[in-house]
């Protein structure tokens, strides 16, 4: 279990959280879900793609171009480990806040 520095950016964290429970999601869906601009999403998705955590799939439906995001197996594993580390931190913080028993 370890905190992954690739998810320190809240936007990157939110992209991963949006995608972890599905096979793929469209660019516009992720943008609306995490409430960022097209350019911010594009930049952070490209960063995740560069570390091998995200696949960017471009295609067409009819004449309309569409972009899809899908997590790679490596990305899923890294995000699961990151969430586990966050849970440990949250539990430790709650324990500390409760004081000595």
């Amino acid at each position, binding site marked *: 279990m370890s905190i992954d520095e690739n998810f320190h950016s*809240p936007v990157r964290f939110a992209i991963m959280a*949006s995608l972890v429970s599905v*096979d793929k999601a469209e660019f516009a869906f992720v943008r609306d879900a995490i409430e960022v601009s097209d350019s911010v999403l594009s930049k952070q998705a490209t960063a995740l793609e560069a570390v091998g955590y995200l696949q960017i799939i471009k295609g067409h439906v009819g004449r309309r171009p569409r972009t899809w995001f899908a997590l790679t197996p490596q990305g899923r594993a890294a995000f699961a480990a990151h969430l586990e580390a966050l849970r440990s931190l*949250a539990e430790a913080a709650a324990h500390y806040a409760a004081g000595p028993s």
Partner: protein
Amino acid sequence: MAQLDPTEALAQAQRLGARTQRSARWLARYYVIFGIASMLIALGFGLLRGRTWALVLSGVWLVLVLGISLYSSRQQTMVRGGGRIHAGVMAAWTVIWVITVTVGASNDLPWPWWLAGGVGMLASPLVGAWVVLRRTEAAQ
């Protein structure tokens, strides 16, 4: 978007995951519509005889298939394992459809083959819908 503490980050991940899973339930709706429509068409073919009815039912089926294809093309998410689920549902549905059409249409059967075929064609999409709902309700 500011940096979150671990508890807030986990809560945000839960919220975003739940939103995506809700969106991915469209495939369950697709299967329910497809299953009910195919059962009604099978019943129609069994109960309404003649070339005219066959043409009308084929036209209705074509419109339904085009409609749900358009609906699916507009969706923005795909459930985990959606490709495999869809392949399994459509393979089972196709086998039942072929059996219903070949056995039912080529033999003068004493029992309502169209009813059995219709229920079979409803069953495989309903199983698919159930699988989709289970996968989109699972905790992150």
